[in-house]
């Protein structure tokens, strides 16, 4: 058995803190970009053009049925051949956004489909414009319906940012590998890093529950 020694890790506080901030940054960027992609694709999935629908379907299925690690490698190692040399963090952000986009598309599509046709027709009967129907009739209940799945997907994304370490983006997991190579305290380093991720996830979950309580206060008939 080994003598546990966490003291050595204190010296690397800055690495860990920097790692956490980049991890949060990647999560934020990929969430925003992913939701934007998802919104566009979910709208396109309901389009009149079969080709567009097929395109969205293939995007979603390909991304959801291949490992994120391989997607990241494809973007990071292949783009330079096309003359586009992205720094690791940008490549990771791009890959995670595309990844998040596919899941967001699926969730948003389900959310939009969850609104009964009759409610939309009722809105039209009241003389609302298409935008007003979307904004006041479809969006609020749809957001409420998808809120749990979107938030748990964001938590999964937070954990998924650890993949960025594999293309040497210096997020939290990369910091861990660095500290481990300096201290050889593998057990302690990975225990601490896992604890940090766990704390972040817990904080995210609590925040999401709080936001959900405030944002979706109106009662439903269900």
């Amino acid at each position, binding site marked *: 058995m080994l003598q546990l020694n966490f003291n050595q890790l204190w010296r690397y506080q800055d690495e860990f803190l920097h790692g956490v901030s980049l991890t949060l940054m990647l999560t934020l960027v990929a969430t925003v970009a992913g939701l934007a992609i998802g919104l566009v694709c979910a709208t396109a999935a309901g389009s009149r053009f079969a080709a567009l629908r097929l395109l969205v379907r293939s995007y979603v299925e390909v991304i959801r*049925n291949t*490992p994120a*690690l391989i997607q990241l490698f*494809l973007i990071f*190692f292949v783009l330079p051949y096309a003359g586009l040399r992205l720094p690791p963090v940008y490549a990771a952000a791009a890959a995670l956004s595309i990844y998040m986009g596919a899941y967001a598309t699926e969730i948003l599509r389900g959310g939009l489909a969850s609104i009964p046709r009759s409610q939309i027709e009722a809105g039209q009967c009241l003389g609302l414009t298409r935008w007003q129907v979307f904004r006041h009739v479809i969006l609020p209940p749809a957001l409420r319906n998808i809120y749990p799945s979107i938030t748990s997907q964001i938590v999964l994304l937070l954990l998924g940012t650890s993949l960025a370490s594999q293309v040497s983006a210096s997020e939290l*997991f990369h910091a861990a590998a660095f500290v481990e190579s300096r201290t050889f305290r593998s057990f*302690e380093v*990975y225990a601490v890093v896992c604890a940090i991720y*766990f704390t972040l*996830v817990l904080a995210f979950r609590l925040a999401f529950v709080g936001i959900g309580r405030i944002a979706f206060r109106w009662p439903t008939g269900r």
Partner: protein
Amino acid sequence: MRGFTISDVLTMLAAVQWTATLVILALAFGAPLALLLARMCTGRSRLARLVATGILQLVQGVPVLGLLMFFYFGMPVFLGIKVPALVSVGAAFTIFTAAFLGEIWRGGIQAVHVAQGEAAACLGLTRWQTFRHVVAPQAFSIALPATVGFLVQLIKNTSLASVVGFVELARAGQLASAATFQPLLSYACVAAIYFALCFPLTLWSRSLEDKLNGAR
């Protein structure tokens, strides 16, 4: 430097057996653990519920990569023994499977109506008989779509084993890419093989879900 040939593809296909080995190991050891955790979560003992919920939350709040590194680099140092790669990588995926399947099955068990258990108790069934003959069959069909969906996640996540040098499908792709300088072909090929493994399962999961929704 050499070109990307059919033999590279064959090497990748051969590496699928190690991906499959990891999946089977994770399921063989992880599924019983998951069942235990799910039972603990839905059981009567408050302590057991607390412990099981804690384990589920903890593992789900940690990246798979973290589990993997912890078991591959951390555990052997901690225990002071040499552990074969297959064992440490297998252990990491076992824990991962136990936690996620445990959560899915807990949901399945809890979705079976309480009245069902009460009815079984009225018929004089023991608690085990109730679980075995009344709750489990219903929970199984409720949880099956999500379980198959998880299988896809598991297959995709075994690609992380490549990070510690375990030669499965993703690692075979990395090796081919490094040898041929053809990352596009190599990784596209790997992605295609993963897709071929996962897509049928996704479709199956979806049709199971439709059937379940239709049955209700």
